[in-house]
């Protein structure tokens, strides 16, 4: 009897199945037809989601991974299909999100000869991937897939790209399905933290009277939120998180300072200026949290714990460091420390919390903050919250407090507009039973709004909140504050009627205009249970986000409240955006 021969594409599907892949987000094209065919000819439980633009596929896989901790797969064709995912790959890379991206490629013998729809995606994406492959033989598929998933999820996670020439996917497979990985240069240090380093750090912590724990995305990736809580409570030390660290420590906990940085809470930022010890676990000291490198925590003992050795001393030179997984580190540290005498310090912090709370006005024009706050209250703070990028992102982070891990999803490092809707789709696929709310600006929403088709098609019950200020609000804010209010290129005149747009896709829409209607409409949107709904919120056009630390400035330069009209002119920021 003749033995049936698998081709490369069928092998690929088998291997993805073996990795436990649940979803492939993608878009077809000539060079991936063999793979799309294999999805039919190979029995598999993997579900394929057809998007409307390849960027959407990458953000969906990203949102899925952030919401579940598991990687998803992106599958797109060569040339323009592949280049369309670059923004999504870069976004995942900046925020250490695992992803496996499969791109079709021209046939091997045509590569480099400007074949139809050939793009050197292996070369183009090199700076924005954790690793990448250009497959040469069908027989390399099992080893490569195994390696790709291993690399994507271990150590500091990140995106891995595999470029697959059409002859490789269409060619016969005669290799070993169980081929072992060959990664002699890749050693992950998921293992224990160095005992001596931990002991030294424990001793120095024990001497502190004004400690702050700074928890980054690393704590969430490592699944160490419970451990972190235990450590903070044992020490009686306050905890702040980065924007991406939201959920690493319950923001409603009395020891929480909320999140810090450019638009973080005044009390978290003040604590940075006055602490005597900063224990950073799993944050890379992003420039948006440190302001001016030369002055950040100048008088404090800085301890940096990171799984990635290249983060130590990149932005800030710590006095002590430990290269370890967050969980392993905290587990090793907690037994070595005891309660600190922080009563005075916590009193000072409480004073700041009283004096500088996050606040907004419920009167006058409708405020984004009001809408977000109402969603927070009426969803009991339990929703998976996804944001786009801009003012609404900062206000969402401020007013939708996060208590649980993986419940706040936002493009931090890249600040990618257009991320919100597709990431929310990915999150909803990954967490079908949870309420997912996407908070988008009118600008960013329009960058990927076509994924409403995907939302409608799969009847995903996402609450899509368009916070519509008819401006590229965040940029307008900079122009108002630092460029004498010369608004340039930020007026979103020509916005469509978003409710009609939703209607065109068969999606339920709500319009929200008056503060008095907020409660009623938010309640109705949350109660709506026949698939997705979109809430268009006509909000104050020229509101500004505070607190604000101008980019590149010392934290001390934080502007806590809106400056009075006619006040001193603010200098242009020196830092990056």
């Amino acid at each position, binding site marked *: 009897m003749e033995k049936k021969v698998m081709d490369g594409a069928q092998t690929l599907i088998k291997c993805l199945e073996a990795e436990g892949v649940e979803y492939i987000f993608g878009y077809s094209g000539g060079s991936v037809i063999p793979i799309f065919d294999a999805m039919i000819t190979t029995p598999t439980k993997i579900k394929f989601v057809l998007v409307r633009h390849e960027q959407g596929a990458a953000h969906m896989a990203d949102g899925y991974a952030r919401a579940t901790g598991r990687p998803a797969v992106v599958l797109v064709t060569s040339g323009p299909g592949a280049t369309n995912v670059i923004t999504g790959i870069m976004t995942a890379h900046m925020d250490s999100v695992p992803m496996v991206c499969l791109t079709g490629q021209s046939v091997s013998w045509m590569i480099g000869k400007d074949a139809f729809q050939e793009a050197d995606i*292996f*070369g183009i994406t*090199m*700076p924005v991937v*954790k*690793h*990448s492959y*250009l497959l040469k033989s069908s027989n390399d598929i099992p080893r490569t897939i195994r390696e790709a998933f291993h*690399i994507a999820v271990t150590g500091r996670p990140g995106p891995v790209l595999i470029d697959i020439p059409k002859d490789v996917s269409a060619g016969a497979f005669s290799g070993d399905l169980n081929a072992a990985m*060959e*990664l*002699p*240069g*890749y050693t992950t240090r998921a293992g224990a933290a160095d005992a001596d380093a931990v002991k030294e750090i424990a001793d120095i912590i024990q001497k502190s009277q004004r400690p702050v724990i700074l928890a980054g995305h690393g704590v969430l990736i490592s699944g160490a939120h419970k451990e972190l809580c235990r450590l903070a409570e044992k020490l009686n030390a306050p905890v702040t998180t980065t924007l991406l660290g939201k959920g690493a420590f319950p923001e409603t906990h009395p020891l929480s300072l909320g999140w810090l940085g450019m638009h973080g809470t005044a009390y978290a930022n003040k604590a940075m200026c006055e602490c005597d010890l900063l224990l950073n676990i799993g944050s890379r000291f992003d420039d948006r949290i440190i302001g001016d490198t030369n002055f950040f925590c100048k008088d404090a003992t800085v301890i940096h714990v990171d799984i*990635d*050795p*290249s983060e*130590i*001393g*990149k932005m800030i030179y710590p006095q002590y460091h430990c290269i370890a997984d967050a969980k392993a580190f905290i587990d090793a540290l907690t037994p070595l420390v005891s309660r600190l005498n922080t009563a005075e310090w916590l009193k000072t912090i409480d004073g700041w919390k009283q004096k500088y709370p996050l606040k907004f006005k419920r009167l006058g024009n409708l405020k984004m903050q009001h809408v977000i706050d109402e969603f927070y209250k009426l969803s009991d703070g339990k929703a998976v919250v996804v944001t786009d990028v801009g003012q609404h992102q900062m206000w969402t982070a401020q007013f939708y407090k996060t208590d649980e891990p993986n419940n706040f999803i936002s493009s931090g490092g890249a600040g990618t507009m257009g991320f919100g809707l597709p990431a929310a789709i990915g999150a909803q696929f990954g967490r079908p039973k949870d309420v997912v709310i996407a908070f988008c600006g009118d600008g960013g929403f329009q960058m990927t709004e076509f994924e409403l088709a995907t939302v409608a098609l799969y009847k995903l019950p996402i609450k899509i909140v368009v916070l519509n200020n008819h401006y590229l609000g965040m940029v307008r804010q900079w122009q108002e504050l630092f460029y004498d209010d010369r608004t340039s290129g930020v007026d979103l005149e020509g916005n469509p009627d978003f409710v009609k747009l939703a209607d065109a896709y068969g999606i339920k829409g709500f319009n929200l205009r008056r503060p008095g209607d907020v409660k009623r409409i938010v309640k109705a949107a949350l109660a709506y249970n026949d698939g997705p709904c979109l809430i268009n919120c006509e909000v104050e056009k020229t509101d500004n986000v505070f607190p604000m630390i101008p980019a590149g400035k010392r934290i001390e330069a934080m502007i806590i409240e809106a400056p009075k009209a006619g006040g001193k002119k603010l200098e242009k920021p020196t830092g990056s955006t």
Partner: protein
Amino acid sequence: MISNKKIHTLSVYVANKPGVLARIAQTFSRRGYNIESLVVSPAMDGHFSRMTIGVSGAANGLAQIIQQVSKLIDVLHCTDHTFDDAVVKEMGLIKISVDSSGRGEALQIAEHFGCKTVDLTETSMILQVVGDPAKIDALVEMIEKFKIIELVRTGKVLLARGAETT
């Protein structure tokens, strides 16, 4: 030609996979470091290659960039040997324009530097020199009195001294 910037000598041991050199080069160039010399050759085990890279740029920060190179999946290790006691060698080929009138002096200089004459015509000669980079610099300076038609240098290679591995 030879800049006075501090050149750091790094030894990088890598898996012999496509793209590894491009990734390393990108890591340096993004941070403003310039690759001054680069030698890549197969290691004893053919699955691996050894790169000896001379980079110039700010000395502070280099340690962190070395970590970034080390973390590339196909890099096994990257070590700065600038201040180590290592054997550092380079080869140069120098083609000079010289006829019978100057040949004697040219050969004298060549002999002093331990050069081999690997090509000789009525009007030219190619000298082959092996040594540490400073020695080659010195030879170039001396031989400049003859017209140098062409010059090529391999870039330095290095091995740690004694039983220590590089």
